[in-house]
Each structure stands twice: as C-alpha cells, then as structure tokens.
C-alpha cells in the first residue's frame, strides 16, 4: 500500500497521484505463523478458508506453545500460484485466531524434521553414513537391509539429502513440514 501526498497539509490530493493497493500474487513462498486459541474446530476453520478458494496448503504443522491455552499453526503456501492476501485477511476474521505473521524468509529461521528409510546392505552402508554425516543427520535404526536416518534443517537441505540418498533406494520418507521463528529479540 502506498499513498502519496502528506495527510497533514491542506492541499487537495491530486487524484492522478493515487496508487491502489493491490491484491496480486506475491510470487514467493509464504510461511504463515498463526497463533490460535487451543479449541476444537480451529484447524478446520483455518483449512476451510484455503479449501473454499481451491488453494493448496504445502505444509502444515500444529503444536502447543508455552501457554497451554494457545497453539501455534505454521503453514506454508505458494504465493506464486495463489493470491494469499485475501485469505490472510479472512484468517484474521476467525474469532479463535489471535495473531498471524507472514514471515519473510530472510528474517526467519525455519526448520523441518524428516525421517528417511533407505535400503542399504553392508556394502552401501559406509557411503550412506558419510552422506548422513555431511548433512549432520543421525542414524536412528539399522537392520541388515535398511537404515533410518533423521535429518533436521531447512526444506532445501531436506530435499538435497533426499536427492542424495534416492539412488540407494528410498523406501519411505516422512516430513513434518516447516516450523518457523522470527530472527532477533522480538516475538514471532
């Protein structure tokens, strides 16, 4: 939103100089951090606002906060595909929604947790352990024919690890979706 002209002066405002606030696609990924009252049905109300517009939620996590009356929902949605401005305004209207932040990627620390079940027999295990080491992952389960690796990091890191281990034979992968916290002293 940009408005030209100084409100404090008595000058008539030239109509030519007014610029409209838009409702356009932002072209970037949005991480919405939403504080909600911990009540039944809240998640359905939030998800419904996306569903009725045909918007796809990429990831969604819900968890407790330091206050047991309040939960935090973190969801990511692609602003290149969907004009999310309208849905954010509608989210604000939900009575159980307390606060919404549309986190700027540069000012945010975002992490997700992923578990990979990879097929690996004796000969491959060494190389797999090396890759895991590089990604600062952890082997959490080993059998004769498979290992399970835990990786934490940004979405990009998790996806990079995935592409590295896929040639070994990726049996299964589980991802939590991102949680995110604003950088600096201020609250998210």
């Amino acid at each position, binding site marked *: 939103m940009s408005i030209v002209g100084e409100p404090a002066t008595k*000058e008539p*405002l030239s109509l030519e100089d007014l610029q*409209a606030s838009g409702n356009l696609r932002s072209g970037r990924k949005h991480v919405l951090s939403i504080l909600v009252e911990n009540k039944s049905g809240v998640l359905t109300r939030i998800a*419904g606002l996306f569903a009725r517009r045909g918007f796809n939620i990429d990831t969604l996590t819900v968890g407790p906060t330091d206050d047991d009356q309040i939960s935090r929902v973190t969801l990511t949605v692609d602003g290149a595909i969907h004009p999310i401005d309208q849905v954010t305004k*509608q989210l604000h209207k939900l009575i159980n929604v307390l606060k919404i932040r549309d986190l700027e990627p540069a000012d945010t620390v975002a992490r997700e947790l992923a578990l990979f079940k990879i097929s690996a027999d004796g000969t491959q295990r060494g190389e797999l352990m090396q890759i895991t080491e590089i990604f600062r992952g952890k082997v959490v389960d080993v059998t004769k024919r498979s290992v399970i690796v835990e990786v934490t990091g940004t979405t990009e890191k998790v996806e990079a690890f995935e592409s590295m281990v896929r040639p070994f034979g990726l049996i299964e992968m589980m991802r939590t979706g991102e949680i995110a916290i604003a950088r600096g002293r201020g609250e998210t």
Partner: protein
Amino acid sequence: MRAVDAVMECLKAEGVDVVFGLPGGANLPTYDAFVDGGLRHILVRHEAGGGHAAEGYAKATGRVGVAFATSGPGATNLITPICDAMMDSVPVVFITGQVRTELLGTDGFQEADTIGITMPIVKHSFMIQDPLEIPRAIHEAFFLARSGRPGPVLVDIPQDLSRAEIPYEPVADVRLPGYQPTLEGNQKQIRQAAKALAAAHRPVIYAGGGVVNANASDELVEFATSDRFPVTCTLMGLGAFPAPHPQWLGMLGMHGTRAANYAMDEADLICAVGARFDDRVTGKLSEFAPNAKFIHIDVDPAEISKNIPAHIPIVGDAKHVLAKLLVEYRALSAPTDRLSEWWQRIEGWREKYPLSFEDSTDTEIKPQYMVQALYEATGGDAIITSDVGQHQMWTAQHYDFPKPRRWINSGGLGTMGFGLPAAMGAAVGCPEMTVCCIAGDGSVQMNAQELATCAQEKIPIKVFIMNNGYLGMVRQWQELFWDGRYSHVETGDYPDFVKLAEAYGATGMRFDDKTTLVEDMKRAIATDGPVVVDVKVTREENTYPMIPAGQAAREMVG
C-alpha cells in the same frame, strides 16, 4: 438451575423479546424451559421460516434476531437462513439442539454435524462440550452477532448437557482476545479521503448495507449534502439515503438506473461506504469505473481491495468514519462550483433515461405499476419485504424508500421464499408499522406455510403476490440469452392463492384491475390479520434497464 433455564436468563439479559423456533427431540429440555421462561416464543411451521423471520426481525429493528431448531433435520433446515444472514451481514443467533454427547459421531437418530456443516457460513459457532460453558457462549454469541460486521452465530447444545444443573450468574464481561473490530477509522486516512473528495470533479458516493447496519443514515445524508455529492445505493443500501432527493441517483448495478451506472462509469472518484463491489454492481470488473480512484470505507478489512483495489482504504464503522469525514471535509472549504459540470452531465442522463415503462392502455396491471400503486397505497410509510427475482428488482426500482430498515430483502444469497417469513419477523419486531411483502408467485410457495404461523399468532402481514405465472427472472434470461427456449419456468395458475390463504386462516383477495388497484390495496392493508393478495400482472414483462451479466455499465440495455 438447569442449563436450559440459564439459556432463558441469558436471552432475557441480552434483551431478547421473541424467539422463532420449532421443537424436536434434542431440544425438548429447552422447550420445557420456555413454559416458565417468561419469553415470547413463536412456533413456526418450518425451521427455514423461523430463520428468515429472525432475519426480518433483525433487519427491521437493528436488534439481534433469535431462531431455535432441534438437531439433524431441524438444524439442516436452518442452513439457508444462516447462509443468507452471512451474505447480508444480519445479526442472528441460532441455537440448535444436538444429540446427547455419548451419541456424537455415531450416526445417532437425528444426528447431523451441525457445526461442521455450517462452518463456512457462520461468523462464529460454539460447540458446547461442558454445560458450564453455556451462559458464556450465549453471551459471546450475541456480542459477536451484533458487533463489528454483524452476522450469524450458532450455538449447538447437546441434549444431555442442556439438562445439567449449573450455577448461573450473569456474564458481564465478554473475553474474545482474537476479536477486536476496528470502528473508529484512521484519522490520517480520513483526512486523505477528504482531500481527495475536495479535489474530485466527478465524485460519486456509493453506499451499501453497511450504512444501514451501522445506523449511519443521518451521517451519510449530512456528509453528502455538505457538498453536492451525487449518491447511489446498492440493493442492500436502499433507504440509507432518502428517496427521492435532488442528489439521489437511484440504485446502481445490474438493474440500476442509467444515471447511477453512467455516473459510476465516468466518475473520477468513488467513495464506497459499507459496500462490497459485488459482481451485480460492478459487471465486468476490468471495465468497472475505468477512470475512478477509490476510497473504500468498511468495518470489515477483508472487503477492502477484495474486488477493486482501493486507493484510500479506511477500516471503520460507517457511523464513526462519516462523522469524522464530514469534519475534515468542511475544514477544507472546497469550492462547490467545481461540481456544476458534473451535475449537468448527470441531469442530462436523468432527463434522457428516467426509470420508465410502457403502461397498459386497458385495465391490465403492469408489474411496475403494481409497485407504484403499493407506494401510493402505503404513502411510502411501510416496511416492504420481497423475495428474489423480477418483483424484487421492480420494487427496488419503483418504491422510493425514505428511511433505512424499510426495505428488507435477500441480496447476497438471493433466497427465494425469504419475503413472507421476513415480513412476519419484521411485523413482530415493529408492531406499529404496516408490513407488506411483495412476493413472486414462484418464491412465495417456498415458505407459504408460515401463513399458518401468522394466522395463529395474529401477525398482520400483507402479502402481495406479483403473479405472472412464471419464474419470471429465469424466463427473462431464457428469452434474452437462451433464444427464447423456455425450460421449466411456467407455473401456470397453480396454486389458487386465494383458497390457499383461506386454508391457512388468512384473508385471500384477488386483484386484476389497474383502475381500482390503489383503492383495492388500501382495502387489503386495512383488513385485520394476515392478508394474501393475488395480483394478476402482465405475464411476459421484462425488468429493464439491465446490464447483461459480465458486461460494462455503459452497455446497459432496455
């Protein structure tokens, strides 16, 4: 006391004087509480009738309407009124019974997931899980329904919880940390708006239902007349600016006046107040008001820049913002003669394209004349409700509403069958007023059962059925846009509305002579109790002027 008795106390504490509803299994305890509750209850014949009656009551009085229904089919019958109240921002609290908690989720008898079904069409809803929550939920429901942008709020109470013994104390404080509507409006933005208005040479004020909801009609008139701002209202805003008036352009939109639509089309600045740029107003969005900048005043921030990007957005209640805007505007002492050219242009349209129709030369009643006759018969001093279709548009065009809350119709959802029960609710809320419903012969059948309620409760509504034997608006579209291939639009002579009225215990009349229509209507209005009048009108008359759907205002036809 029992939780249901606490419900009665809550309603009384909220100032409720009437409840529209229908009992059933899951709300038997609630209905037991009505016996000694000291609250007026009106037994409707279908829950949808009760829901629309509560809407009519709310729209006529400005107070919160209340409708009760049982679980399952009772609750699902309320879906249309709930959605209607959502679309038109009507403050109504719906209280539904639910199966007892041990049956929840088991497909119990008359179980429906009422909270789930209604979630997208309520302002908020409360699923009661603990009887101790009931009083607070009811009070919060009323607070939410009436404040900010009004809307429907639903409270779903399982049968077993409603029977629980709870201590009741009046709830004075409502705590809703996630809900703080902005009412005042940003002072700097308001000043910007005043300056833009002072600079404009072709301004239009475009007022909607938000002005009525905020009781801001006086502020609107005072602001508009502080200069010579032309004013147009949406279908929902009719009456917010008094008609007729030298600055009144008429309604805008699909069936609005040419003066209003052309003024929007050529405006350099549009000041929208409590209006939401609905597609029936804008037509083709990319060609809507192509030369205009927009000031958008609305209490709901989600409406601003939703369809049309606003240059000066102001979040606030119309009453507060218009009052402040007036002060700011006066301080600028803008030269009034700058609007002279604009008014010449508008007067030109007014003269060239007045709202008109070709009247019959014999005794045949043209539908437009029927509306004018009702205006004459009531002296404009009545509450008028309508259903949805041609008759609704003709009423909006040809009945001059002098005050807000005199015109009650279903705008956003376009609900056929709204008018009769809404008239019933309006008449209960405003017993001193004449309440008339202009109904369609197709629409009226959808809630005609409420005539029994009106007869039993002696609610003296006057229903004037504009009977052309067609689902007229659909017929018109088939004629104009589907090569005249009529498909299932003819209703013929059925039913016999006079006999139907009599069967329900109302008075039935039939008028078909233009020359005596005004006197006949006066006679119908003077008749005690509910009256149904079958008015035979021209069968294939079209509603004009009109902007064909998806086209621009300057392409108006007819």
